[in-house]
């Protein structure tokens, strides 16, 4: 906690020393941007924001902020949208990845056939596909969600695979030698044994989901955090607006906060589910 305050302190000092508000905006301004983004919602560059706008003429006022406010973008709104995409990606991608990982881990034969295909599939970053998918699906929500699902699934395969193969191997054998087969083997033996590895993979998949969602939004969406970060607005006018580092920093901090929260949640969940684990 103290270190957090120290971090803020160091930053404020650095910002003041550097005295380049267009690169390192002073802490107060970040605070103000935060407030503005929180919910003064739809205000066409007027009201309190207008005053701020005029006050900071010298660093070519926040076009980014204006655009965002014009569009009625709020921090929590954008965050909610991105979170929604992340959750969707997890909801669909996790089961897919787990299924594949378990299959490959449990059966040597399946592994021999599927692993090369998997290696090919995971070699291309999902976000690179996004332009290709657009040709098929146009500018639709599915077009943005598919890379997230894909990234999560691909990420989840390896930890599940290792859990099923390396960790669960001997337990599966012991269970088979006791006559266990089928669903009993899967749910009572394989899943619990691979569980710890899978939970580790989950935390990693979480990070990947966020990254892919934000990336997809930066490239191809008109809402959400990624959009906020690159200046809001329509796809066509993207990257033309002058960026406001205060807005960006607020956005990054918000993402970091949510990311940390989700990770902490996953950690707690993991600890509870694996109370039986040794040392």
């Amino acid at each position, binding site marked *: 906690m103290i270190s957090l305050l120290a971090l803020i302190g160091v930053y404020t000092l650095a910002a003041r020393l550097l005295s380049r508000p267009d690169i390192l905006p002073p802490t107060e301004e970040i605070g103000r941007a935060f407030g503005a983004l929180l919910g003064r919602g739809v205000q066409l560059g007027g009201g309190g924001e207008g005053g701020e706008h005029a006050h900071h003429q010298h660093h070519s006022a926040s076009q980014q902020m204006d655009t965002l406010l014009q569009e009625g973008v709020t921090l929590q709104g954008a965050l909610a949208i991105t979170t929604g995409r992340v959750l969707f990606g997890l909801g669909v991608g996790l089961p897919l990845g787990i299924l594949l990982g378990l299959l490959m881990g449990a059966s040597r034969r399946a592994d021999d056939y599927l692993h090369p295909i998997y290696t090919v599939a995971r070699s291309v970053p999902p976000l690179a596909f996004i332009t290709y998918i657009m040709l098929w699906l146009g500018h639709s929500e599915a077009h943005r969600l598919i890379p997230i699902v894909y990234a999560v699934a691909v990420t989840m395969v390896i930890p599940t695979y290792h859990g099923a193969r390396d960790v669960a191997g001997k337990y599966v*054998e*012991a269970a088979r*030698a*006791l*006559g266990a087969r089928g669903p009993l083997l899967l749910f009572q033996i394989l899943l619990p044994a691979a569980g710890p590895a899978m939970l580790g993979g989950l935390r990693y998949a979480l990070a990947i989901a966020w990254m892919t969602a934000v990336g997809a939004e930066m490239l191809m969406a008109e809402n959400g955090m990624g959009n906020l970060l690159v200046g809001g607005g329509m796809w066509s006018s993207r990257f033309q607006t002058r960026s406001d580092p205060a807005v960006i920093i607020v956005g990054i901090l918000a993402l970091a906060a949510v990311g940390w929260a989700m990770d902490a949640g996953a950690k707690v969940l993991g600890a509870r589910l694996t109370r*039986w684990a040794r040392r």
Partner: protein
Amino acid sequence: MTAGAPPPVLEAVDVGYGYSGPTPVQALDGLSLEVKDGEFVALLGPVGSGKTTLLRIFAGFLRPARGRVRCSGASVDGPGWQRGYVLQEEAVFPWMTVRGNLEFGLLAKGMGPDERRKVSDELLELIGLTAFADAHPKELSTGMSKMVEVARVLATDPSILLLDEPFGALDAHTRQRMQDALARLWAQRRKTVLFVTHDAEEALYLADRVVVLSPRPGRVKARFTVDLPRPRSFESRFSPEFLALKRQVWEATGLDAG
């Protein structure tokens, strides 16, 4: 085999098995072995003599590259509860309680909860862990969890037991106790046991016959019949016959270090 006699419960004829990899290893080569019904046979040999490999072939996890393996006259198709197998590694299920572990095989067989409880109560008493019935294996020492594994495999009452160095991690007293328990059980229920160990004394204490394997590749090097009277006790270890056998076995195994 003489015609008319029942087939040996476990039979391996000219079995070969190799492991590929950076240094390929011929684990077994031309190994032939028989275990008759109700016999207690110990497989003795140093590291690398393929004892575990042979056991796993009998258990149904590996298929011999050469030769054939039969169980009660039929070929071995895969693992099953009829051939109770205890691994060398620690394989007690850590996410289940001790009782859960013991009852697992019975669960797989479809036994009802009350019946299962009766059996698990008996077994808990046998291994002296009644107090730990609802504990998780992480609270047990390595030796105790191995005992749980042995008891777990006994729950389904298989007629064949394949044990891979089960008492290796136990201290001397516990080991003695478990060896006696195993011997008692074997005498009561007349199971056919194939027991892998690298400890000559343990082999002689428990078995009817001791088969000595040579390392890399595994072949039968010597066979000993252990005629010592049963039930054996701690005292038996000091009888002249025991010591004589022990010397013979040592000579058979020792001088040929791999």
